[in-house]
């Protein structure tokens, strides 16, 4: 169900002042295309950005990761966590820096939004871990950024967003349904995907952002999309923050089955998600200003 590109274009053409991706991240992405690049080389480039470096180190040393010894340099973090994980962390920091502040829109609580996002990231990571997926940080960032399009709506398509929130309130429906009504079929997923391309996010991440409500429309990254689809629903069920509405969508059966969760195990999985979300405080402190 690809969105009508002309309709999306009509909206994004009016967006002005979108923050750009920090140069350091662009450079790191380029460097990582070379399979022979070393941790020290990438570390050196990231460490040229002092603010970014200190935030990355704060996160990787937080309770969320629970490493027994302090990680003191970015190079060290790359050696322990891997290139993709550190790039994901750098991406999270950049998103928080660019979109973390402000937001006083009535009916859309930014803090609740970030709680939902961080909770969903933690949930996706827990689910990925149970499936023995190696790229845990990719799952975390996919959950963390799955609704980033809502921030784009709030910040850059504000008038329509206010209308959307009004529809959500009046009809008590999912925000995605209200978006389709107000934006002629366009959703926060489409706007999030648009940002993902502008920001050179990993293709898997873009696919998650665009298709997590409808996993059957995913292609290459079906498993990751399914994980975030389920993570979003579990985070809503646990009432961890809010993504702008107070309903829960019906789960996609194939996506659920793909994860192979035994219903009898679900309470302990939920408990694991709660514990993990609590440990993600360090992420929240980066937007909490």
């Amino acid at each position, binding site marked *: 169900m690809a969105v009508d590109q002309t309709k999306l274009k009509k909206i994004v053409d009016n967006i002005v002042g979108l923050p750009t991706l920090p140069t350091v991240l662009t450079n790191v992405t380029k460097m990582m295309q070379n399979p022979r690049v070393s941790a020290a080389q990438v570390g050196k480039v990231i460490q040229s950005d002092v603010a970014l470096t200190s935030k990355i180190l704060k996160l990787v040393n937080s309770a969320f990761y629970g490493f027994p010894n302090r990680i003191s340099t970015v190079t060290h973090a790359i050696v322990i966590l891997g290139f993709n994980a550190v790039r994901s962390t750098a991406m999270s920091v950049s998103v928080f820096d660019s979109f973390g502040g402000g937001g006083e829109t009535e009916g859309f609580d930014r803090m609740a939004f970030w709680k939902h996002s961080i*909770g969903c990231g933690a949930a996706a990571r827990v689910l990925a871990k149970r499936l023995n997926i190696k790229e845990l940080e990719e799952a975390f960032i996919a959950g963390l950024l799955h609704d980033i399009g809502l921030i784009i709506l709030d910040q850059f398509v504000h008038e329509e967003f206010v209308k959307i929130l009004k529809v959500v309130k009046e009809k008590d429906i999912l925000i995605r349904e209200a978006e389709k009504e107000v934006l002629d079929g366009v959703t926060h997923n489409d706007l999030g995907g648009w940002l993902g391309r502008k920001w050179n996010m990993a293709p898997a991440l873009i696919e998650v952002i665009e298709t997590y409500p409808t996993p059957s429309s995913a292609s290459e990254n079906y498993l990751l999309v399914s994980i975030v689809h389920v993570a979003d629903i579990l985070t809503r069920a646990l*009432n961890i923050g809010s993504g702008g509405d*107070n*309903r*829960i969508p*019906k*789960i996609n059966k194939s996506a659920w089955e793909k994860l192979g969760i035994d219903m009898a195990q679900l*309470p302990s999985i939920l408990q694991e998600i709660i514990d993990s*979300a609590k440990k993600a405080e360090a992420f929240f402190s980066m937007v909490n200003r």
Partner: protein
Amino acid sequence: MRKVATNDLEPGMKIARKVENKAGMVLLPEGIELTEAHISRLKKWGIEEIYVEGEDEKGAGSGADIVPDLTVSEDFIANLNHKFEKVLDDPIMQGIYNAVKSIASGENKE
């Protein structure tokens, strides 16, 4: 663990993180239960806040309240019912609903 201003401390609270002065000297160790005497000493030392055991109260404003307190409120269950109202005909959604409810009622606590 939660951060509490020294003025709001009460005897009986347990220290969750050791209290140090600026020079790094330990004033009160982790794990002890606060007495009136401790609290007045903390005030005298000019310590403005310390970490004590227990969860953050709702709306306490620190980052520790990402997860709502699932166990206490009737509101939580009422809200859960509302959220799931239109999807409970689906067996998987029903399973999720029941699992959340069991956690909220503390059945899953070890």
